[in-house]
Structures are given as structure tokens and as C-alpha cells.
């Protein structure tokens, strides 16, 4: 009986229900309510905070960003003068320090991760076991410990400034850091840069043309090697034509620390190595999972078509594996960036250390500074995600 009733109701006309019981209207009402409550909570929270801060006599506003900071920072990618630069400048210096360790860390972690991930699938017993040992060792020890091991463990082994390891032209290494030779570009150096840009543009054009020609005629053009040759060759040519406008500022030992050259501080090295090796272990597992996720039939089909092993990997396996690899890889990139805030433990002047640390302490304005810092990390993470999502869409399966 009940079954026929229901059947008839659906068949005849949309059932008459009260507007409030309409699931779509109801859903919309709940969402609007939730949004209103959330907005009110945020509004009330901020209002309450401002009120409390005023009552407690704590300064509000962001005027402090224009005040002179007056403390030194051991690594700065832009001009920073402790006597003149403001807290706003400190923020930029800290942000750049965070970004540089994150970008370089992501670069190396990806390379090491891919190598180790592929090595774990190797048929060679030793390579396979070494890769497994690497992953298990680095993945299972807390990152902070890694950082301390690299910093205090490795630092203690390096010599004092006066007994530096001297690599001649390659600079000096001691417990104050790595003192590298600094390139000084002479007149006409810009031409080399232009040559490099032109080479990249031409290489890109050739690769497009080669792809098109292969699609039309099936003929293969060695676009990769041509491009590589151009990218190295053109700037080199420009360099020689301009009469080698390059000299090196080589660091010299002496005094408390070597003078001249560029300094890479040990805090940066320790943090970079720790972040890279730790994240690479996770990336290796993601890569392994991605490759194993591609069905064996794909390889067999590729071989049946006559593709060689290298072509099989490059054209069949990797593109499909990437679809599985990219989303979790994005998480690892975000983790690495956020984990770089552990820098504060070893005095690397990242955003958390100089801004959310020193600046907060000098000014005492916790709400503003914590908010700025959180927003900054949020922005970096969202931008990284957006880029990776764009890339993921590009490599996603195109169904025809």
C-alpha cells in the first residue's frame, strides 16, 4: 500500500510541502544562519579584543611597523641597516629568509625524494634496502631533533675561524659558516642575461615546433638537447664576446671571521639539510605509491607498441603517476614551508624568529603580530596550493 502511494505521488506531480520543509530552502536557511553566526562571532571577538586591549592600556593599530627596529639580523637578502630599518623591513627580511629556505628546500627535497622513491622500487637489493633505510630513518625521527643534530652535531665538528678548511678558489668553511667567492660582474654583463632569456625563448619555440612536426609527420627532432645546447651556449658566447666581464671576490681568513665573499650562515645550512632530508623521505613514499599506482598493463602495452624502457617511463608511466603524486606532494611542500618556522630553535632569522619573536618582544604587540604572521603563512600556503592545483589540472587525465 505504502509503496503504491509513494509511487503515485512521484509520478503525478511534485509533492506539496511547506516552504520550510523544502530541503533546498531549508538548506539555504541553515547556511545563511551559519554564516551570520560566524560573522557575528568574528566581529564580536575583534570588538571584544580591541576593547580589552584598550582597557588594559595596550597599544592597538599597526603604526609600530614604521618604528625603527634597532636590532641586527644575521642574514638578510635585502639591504637591512639596524640603525635605520623599520619593523616593516624586518618583516620583509624575515619573510624572504623563510621563502628562500622553503624554495631551495622544496627543490632539493623533490629531487632527493624522486631518486629515493624510484630507488625503493629498484630490483637491485642493496639500492632498494638503502632507500628503505633512508626513508624509515628520516621519517621516524622528529624534525626538531634533525635540526638540532645537524646544527649542534655538525657545528661542533667544524673548525674555528682561524683554522678554517680552505678550498682555495671555492672559499672557506668553518663554524661561522661557508664563505663562498662572490661574483662581481663587470661591464656588459647584462648582455649575458639577455642571451640567456633569448636562449630560453628560442628553446621553448623549438620544442613547440618539434612537437607539432612529430604530430604531423612522426619525425622526431632532438628538441631537448638542442634546447640545452642553446641555453648553455648562447650566454657562454655572450660571455666570451664581452671579454669575460667577471671577477671573483674570494674570502680571506683573518680576524674573528673571514672577510669578503658571500657568507652562508651555518643556521641556514643546518635548517636546509634537515628540512630537505626529512621531507624527501615523505616525498619518496609518495613517488613510490604513484608509480605503483600505474597499472602494469600500461608498461606492457607500451612495450608492445615498441617503446623503449626510457620512453616507457617518460611518456607512459610518469605522466600517469604524476596524477597520483601531485596532490599529496602539495601537502609536503606546504609542510616544508611551515616546518621552516622551527628555525627559531637554532637562531636562523626566519619570519617567526625575527618578526613573531624579536619584534613581538620589543613591541609587546602580540595580537597584531601574531595575526600578521598567521595571515602571511596562510597566504604562502594558499599560493603554493593554487600553483600546484593549476599544475595538477594540467597533468590530469584528459578524457577524449
Amino acid at each position: 500500500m505504502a509503496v503504491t502511494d509513494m509511487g503515485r505521488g512521484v509520478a503525478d506531480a511534485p509533492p506539496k510541502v511547506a516552504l520550510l520543509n523544502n530541503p533546498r530552502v531549508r538548506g539555504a536557511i541553515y547556511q545563511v544562519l551559519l554564516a551570520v553566526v560566524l560573522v557575528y562571532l568574528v566581529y564580536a571577538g575583534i570588538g571584544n579584543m580591541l576593547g580589552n586591549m584598550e582597557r588594559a592600556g595596550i597599544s592597538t593599530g599597526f603604526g609600530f611597523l614604521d618604528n625603527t627596529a634597532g636590532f641586527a639580523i644575521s642574514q638578510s637578502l635585502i639591504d637591512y641597516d639596524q640603525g635605520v630599518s623599520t619593523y616593516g623591513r624586518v618583516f620583509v627580511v624575515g619573510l624572504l629568509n623563510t621563502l628562500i629556505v622553503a624554495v631551495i628546500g622544496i627543490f632539493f627535497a623533490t629531487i632527493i625524494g624522486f631518486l629515493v622513491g624510484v630507488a625503493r622500487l629498484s630490483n637491485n637489493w642493496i639500492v632498494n634496502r638503502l632507500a628503505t633505510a633512508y626513508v624509515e630513518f628520516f621519517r621516524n625521527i622528529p624534525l626538531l631533533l634533525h635540526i638540532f643534530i645537524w646544527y649542534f652535531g655538525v657545528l661542533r665538528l667544524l673548525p674555528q675561524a682561524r683554522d678554517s678548511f680552505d678550498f682555495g678558489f671555492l672559499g672557506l668553511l668553518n663554524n661561522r659558516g661557508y664563505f663562498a667567492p662572490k661574483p662581481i660582474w663587470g661591464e656588459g654583463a647584462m648582455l649575458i642575461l639577455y642571451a640567456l632569456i633569448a636562449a630560453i625563448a628560442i628553446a621553448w619555440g623549438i620544442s613547440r615546433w618539434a612537437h607539432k612536426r612529430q604530430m604531423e609527420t612522426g619525425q622526431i627532432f632532438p628538441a631537448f638537447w638542442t634546447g640545452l645546447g642553446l641555453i648553455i651556449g648562447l650566454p657562454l658566447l655572450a660571455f666570451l664576446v664581452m671579454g669575460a666581464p667577471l671577477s671573483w671576490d674570494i674570502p680571506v681568513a683573518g680576524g674573528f671571521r673571514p672577510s669578503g665573499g658571500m657568507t652562508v650562515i651555518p643556521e641556514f645550512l643546518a635548517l636546509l639539510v634537515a628540512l630537505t632530508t626529512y621531507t624527501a623521505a615523505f616525498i619518496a613514499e609518495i613517488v613510490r605509491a604513484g608509480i605503483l599506482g600505474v597499472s602494469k598493463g600500461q608498461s606492457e602495452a607500451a612495450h608492445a607498441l615498441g617503446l623503449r624502457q626510457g620512453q616507457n617511463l617518460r611518456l607512459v608511466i610518469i605522466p600517469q603517476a604524476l596524477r597520483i603524486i601531485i596532490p599529496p606532494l602539495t601537502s609536503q611542500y606546504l609542510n616544508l614551508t611551515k616546518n621552516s618556522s622551527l628555525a627559531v630553535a637554532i637562531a636562523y632569522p626566519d619570519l617567526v624568529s625575527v618578526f613573531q619573536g624579536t619584534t613581538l618582544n620589543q613591541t609587546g604587540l602580540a595580537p597584531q603580530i601574531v595575526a600578521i604572521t598567521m595571515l602571511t603563512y596562510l597566504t604562502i600556503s594558499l599560493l603554493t596550493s593554487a600553483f600546484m592545483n593549476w599544475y595538477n589540472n594540467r597533468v590530469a587525465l584528459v578524457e577524449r
Partner: protein
Amino acid sequence: MTKTVLTGVLGAAVLALGASTASAATLDDVKAKGFVQCGVSQGLPGFSNPDADGEWSGMDVDLCRGIAAAIFGDATAVKFTPLSAKERFTALQSGEVDVLSRNTTWTMSRDTQLGLNFAGVNYYDGQGFMIRTDMNINSALELSGASICTNTGTTTELNVADYFRANNMEYELVAFEKADEVVAAYDAGRCDVYTTDQSGLYAQRLKLTDPGAHKVLPEIISKEPLGPVVRQGDDQWFNIIKWVHNATLNAEELGVTMDNVEEMKESDNPAIRRLLGTEGEFGTDIGLDNDWAAKAIAAIGNYGEIFDRNVGPDTELAIGRGVNALWSQGGLQYAPPIR
């Protein structure tokens, strides 16, 4: 680090969502919960340092015990919260601690911009430099180009900057979150120089592998009046902290000690009788019993005793009284009279 962020965020959250924390009468809260929550350092011998059993000792700790004794007659009615340099003000502002007694330098911006009040100076300090003896350096003016280790978020960073700028010298600053890491990095040779308040240098030197191989340079480059801090807006609590400290100074001046405080109550000297509550109603005026000072002194002794017990010549730190002597003996320690 995680805790620091947490404190910062929680501090902000408490400020955002909590009821006004600053206006409540701290004394009533403290009496209701039965103990004083005292913010101290994470371990600085002579000022606030836990021993193997977790028992805290030091000058800053004694001040907290004195406050507890003045309120409850029990010097153990106090709980300690170890705070890093950067957590300390947020912890006090958000009401996590009742009083901050953590070798904190009294500066104008801290006093005026953070909603806090400094209740006195229990140690006059100054920033100094420590260096390896075998570097053969005898003056801070020879330090151009040196790498300098210190704590982040302290006045020391700014003082070093000023000093080196004023003398046209270069330096590299390596600033760590925790004092233990500063000591480890200095010990490992990352830096040539360790800088912090001179009392701190003597204290941290004890943690080095070979304390004898390091010396403190003679220059003092800053004024560092260290003292207890309370929230602004609660004058009663502010007065209590201020006067417990003043009572220990007055006691030393008047010759009242931990041992003779009971017999001194019967003294003929009216100043002593007022201090110990035999005469006058000074205790009830600040919301305590009249023998508040007597209870505090019985628990922690007078200022001289506190100094000698924690940092004086017979301790490992072996710091002389210097500017921390009473005004009557050529020092700076001076308390207004109780009358």
C-alpha cells in the same frame, strides 16, 4: 617554540574572547585559589632555577615566596610558571600569572605600552660580554667583527646594536629562543662572544664545559634594572608587590633578619615596630594582615640575606653587592620608609 606560539595565540584569543582580565582584583583571586601564580625564567641560577627535585630557588623566586608568605603566612603557597623571554608579557597580560618575577628589565616602553607596571628593582644589573680567555681580548672595544650569541627578544639585542653602532664596529648577531641553546652554541664555538646581563653571564658560565676558560669583560654597556611586573589597573596588588620588596630592604636597613624577626617585634625602635606590625595599621591598608612584613621576612629574610643566599660571594655565582648594596652603604637599593 610550539609553546611560545601557543601562548601568543592563546594570549591573543584570551584578549579577544575572554572577559576583561585586568580589572579584577588580583588579591581576591589569589586568596580564592589559595596560591600565587608566579612567572619565572626557564632556569637562570641565582634568580630562578629549579633543582633536581623541581624545587625553585633564586632571588626572583624568593620575592614570590615573600609575597605568598605576606598573604598566606605560607611561603610555599606559590606556583611557578617558567616563561621564555618572549612569552612573559603575554602570560602576564592574559592573567596566566599573577606576578612576573623574571629578571625583567624595566624600560619605558614596557612600562607604558604594554598595560603593565614595574613594582620596583630587586637587582640593578648591566649588560656585559663573556669571551674565551685564550682570545686575548681585554676590552669590548676590541670586538669589531665578532659573532655574538644572545637570546632573542630581550633588551640585550638593542643594547649591542647601540653599542657597536656608537663605536663604529661590525658584528654578527646570532639570536636564540632559549638560553640553553645560546650556551650550547657559544660552547660549540659558533660565537666569539656571549652577551646578556652580567649576572646572567656569571650564572650561565657555570653551565659551560670549562667555565675557567671564559672571562667576563669589564665593560657594562647598559642599565638593566630588573624587577617584578604586574598588570596595570589593580593598584592594590601593585602596592602589595612593591611593599613586600620594600619591606625586605627596610628590614636589612633596620637589622631585622629571618632569625631575629620574632624578638624584634618587641623592639623599642618605632620604625621596626611599624615594619613588623606591632604599631600602626599598615597591613590592613593594603588588604593584608598587620604582620604581613614579619611573615615575609620570617620566610625569606631581609634583602641582604636573600642576596647572599642566592648570588652572594659564598655562592657559585660569587657576585659582590656592588650597586646592589643599601644606599647607606654606597649602593642604589633604597626603600621609602614605612610610616
